[in-house]
């Protein structure tokens, strides 16, 4: 994949992967590992009290999937910048489609637009990343 970013045309989808649905156990594990114990992700009653049908996936867990997409597709390209806007909640039990599109490539860096959407549903995370394409030693 190393050459693909350098020579890809702007507008090309340069990486895409569907991650399997997350369940409550995944959220419990992420809460423990990340330290984000917000009950919105762990307790159904709390999530309902906050206006949701059930517990929702940590936004940062969705962003971590985008990070995995980048790492797996471009392992040799260091990440310079990584941003996410959490636009819709990710429910449990739905596969998550992650996609990276090249938006600019210039001066040894590549800019990507990122999206994570629940399968058949709305875009939950809209993001961007800047990768170093050419390491000038």
């Amino acid at each position: 994949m190393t050459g693909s970013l350098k020579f890809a045309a702007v507008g090309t989808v340069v990486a895409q992967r569907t991650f399997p649905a997350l369940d409550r156990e995944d959220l419990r594990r992420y809460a423990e590992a990340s330290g984000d114990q917000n009950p919105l992700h762990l307790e159904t009653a709390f999530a309902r009290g906050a206006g949701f049908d059930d517990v929702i996936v940590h936004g940062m867990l969705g962003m971590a999937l985008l990070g995995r997409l980048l790492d797996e597709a471009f392992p040799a390209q260091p990440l310079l910048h990584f941003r996410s806007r959490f636009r819709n909640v990710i429910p449990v039990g739905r596969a998550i489609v992650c996609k990276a599109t090249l938006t600019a490539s210039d001066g040894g860096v590549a800019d990507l637009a990122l999206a994570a959407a629940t399968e058949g549903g709305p875009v939950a995370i809209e993001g961007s990343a800047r990768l170093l394409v050419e390491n000038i030693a």
Partner: protein
Amino acid sequence: MAIDRQFIGYSLPPFTVTVERERLRQFAVAIGGWSSGGDEDRAPPTYLKVIEGEDNSSRKILAALGVDLRRVLHAEQEFEFHAPYRAGDRLAVERTVSNIYERKAGELEFVVVDTLIRQSSGALVARTQQVILVRNAAPVTT
């Protein structure tokens, strides 16, 4: 309830975090796997959020601002990577509320928290920005 704009500029006392290999391993499992390029001391990019959230720092900021946790959602997160870090490093974390603004006539308020993460030498590892959405109009029940 509107958040007092006097909290713009509010900083938590700086704290330090030692990056632990076992925590990195647990985090890698929790995100469903991480290749780490064969280097188990290398963290996934979003691990910076764990570092900045140590010392219960996000909850401390919300508590200082008087925000009800049930009204809060994570709106945005941004990482600017300056230098790598690895397990064993001791990092200094400084978090500051850089802005508070509203939308929809105060129905929604946004709290922007800027964070600097440095090596103990002072060298910058990362700048991050977290935007917290406070849903003032949301019906919350206990």
